[in-house]
């Protein structure tokens, strides 16, 4: 940047000075933002308003929506048993994820740590399921969850234990959600582990060393130092996990179609069923709005509740 500007640049400098410069900047801003703004308004923002409109109609998608029903759809949804199951399942997946999947990911990240031999290898393997598509993951799990121990690997291993019997994991309303959750964990724990690994890397080694010299035990140094310093990473990971859990779709749809008897229905499978299978688009729109409000409500409350404590802002 220290070099003498070439002559064409000097010419530009003159033209770019003063008021024309401002105009030029404003034009640049407009042109640079325009493509993003158009796409975003058209496909993300406008649909929100449009679905609010359609949610007030009983509309099958043919011709214009004329059968105005007010907030009838919203009332019907709340009194539909299946919707409540879907909501409960969403919340259960959230609870399972927070109680099992994230601690597992954090534990593994700590185990892999900063200096384990073969660290890169473990990371590569653990993260692999995350990059495979949900279709592929779902079909893999369908295959190994086959109820017949002659076909499905999980049951084949299970029957080796005395007293254990093969289970139709996906066919039994009592086990289906657990089976789906195991598949979800398989797919997503690597992502959270990766976040924690990055977070751990950012903790200065000196702090851990100082604690060790002061005589802190491994557990003490984990709970008093590592965990608080991971605060912002955990905060992010919890946020993404909750939002992701609430809107699970493809994996569940391919593995169970929400069945048997709606036992594994999620909010997204419920919306898909009404919107794209039964073509009750007004009703489906109302479901979409409930989902949107749920995500929005959670985001706002969560961000308010988890403001970073002051002593951590420097890290």
């Amino acid at each position, binding site marked *: *940047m220290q070099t003498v500007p070439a002559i064409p640049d000097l010419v530009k400098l003159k033209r770019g000075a003063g008021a024309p410069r401002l105009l030029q900047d404003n034009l640049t801003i407009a042109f640079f933002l325009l493509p993003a703004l158009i796409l975003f308004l058209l496909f*993300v923002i406008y649909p929100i308003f449009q679905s609010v409109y359609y949610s007030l109609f009983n509309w099958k998608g043919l011709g214009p929506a004329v059968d105005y029903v007010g907030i009838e759809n919203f009332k019907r949804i709340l009194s539909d048993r299946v919707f409540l199951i879907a909501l409960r399942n969403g919340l259960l997946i959230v609870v399972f994820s927070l109680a099992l999947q994230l601690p597992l990911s954090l534990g593994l990240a700590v185990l892999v740590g900063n200096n384990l031999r073969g660290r890169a290898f473990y990371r590569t393997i653990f993260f692999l399921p995350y990059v495979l598509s949900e279709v*592929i993951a779902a079909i893999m799990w369908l295959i190994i969850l086959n109820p017949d121990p002659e076909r499905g690997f999980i049951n084949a291993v299970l029957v080796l234990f005395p007293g254990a019997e093969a289970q139709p994991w996906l066919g039994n309303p009592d086990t289906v959600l657990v089976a789906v959750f195991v598949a979800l964990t398989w797919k997503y724990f690597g992502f959270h582990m990766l976040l924690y690994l990055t977070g751990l890397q950012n903790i200065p080694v000196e702090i851990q060393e100082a604690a060790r*010299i*002061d005589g802190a035990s491994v557990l003490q140094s984990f709970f008093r130092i590592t965990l608080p310093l991971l605060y912002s990473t955990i905060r992010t990971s919890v946020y993404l996990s909750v939002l992701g859990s609430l809107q699970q779709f493809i994996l569940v749809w391919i593995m169970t179609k929400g069945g048997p008897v709606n036992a594994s229905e999620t909010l997204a499978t419920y919306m898909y069923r009404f919107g794209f299978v039964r073509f009750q*688009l007004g009703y489906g729109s109302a479901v979409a709005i409930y989902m949107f409000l749920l995500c929005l409500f959670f985001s706002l409350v969560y961000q308010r509740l988890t403001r970073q404590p002051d002593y951590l802002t420097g890290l």
Partner: protein
Amino acid sequence: MATMSIPRQRWNARKFLPQFARYFILTVVIVFVLVPIVMLLFGALKTRGEFMTRPYTLPIPPRWENVITIVSEPSFWGMLRNSLLVMLAATFGVVAICSLAAFVFARMEFRTKGLAFNLFTVGLMFPINVAILPVYFVLRQIDLIDSLMGVILVQTAFQLSGNILILRGFFTAIPTELQDAAYIDGCTAFDFFIRILLPLARPALAAVAALTMIVSWNDLLVPLIVINQDKLWTLPLGTMQFQGQYGQDLSLVSAFVAISALPTIIFYLFAERQIVSGLTAGAIKG
């Protein structure tokens, strides 16, 4: 006291978490991760009969019949082509559009900047799984149903928020002095962006591109609602339909799934660093 505690601490740590227990746990998790993948490969390399009678043995000798059946099917190559086309277009769109917008948010001032930026962050709370039905209405209105263009535009639109955020973070980290120097030398904002900022931000652009490629390549939801005719199926959509149609012939399904997973795995092994840095930057900024 302090000097006493160092040896005691070391001994404690060894007792508490012996190295072999560490490796043991990690190995258990590796098995958990690999079982579905390995079973899939076993199935893919066996004949239907072999897979029925002894599914859990190594596929020796490997049978390539299923694989050959699938790769000699023109429709498979059609899906591959569609997926590639969508992925490349969406990735190009995301990288170009997001870097333009991120530059404005990182480096330029205007009155409604805060408002415009907040608008884009709404997208983070409105993921495609929630938005899919409303988006479908819009696609119907502008007549993009049953076209790859519809898939590309929707995928691009829903990748904007996160990637603008990632790139803005990277762009902000580039020293302001560079920009001042460039402006003093007579650069316009556009010159600075094209000639200085973008080349410097190449690693960030690679991360965004790698991430978008994975998301687009794996996406099933958007093609599922946009595409009707089987000529336009993408690979995930084709995989789902194939599983529905040949669900009984597990070895054939396994072969199809294994082949369709192959490009992702190869890409992952080459671009792991970019994918990882894109994801962690995105998550931590978001």
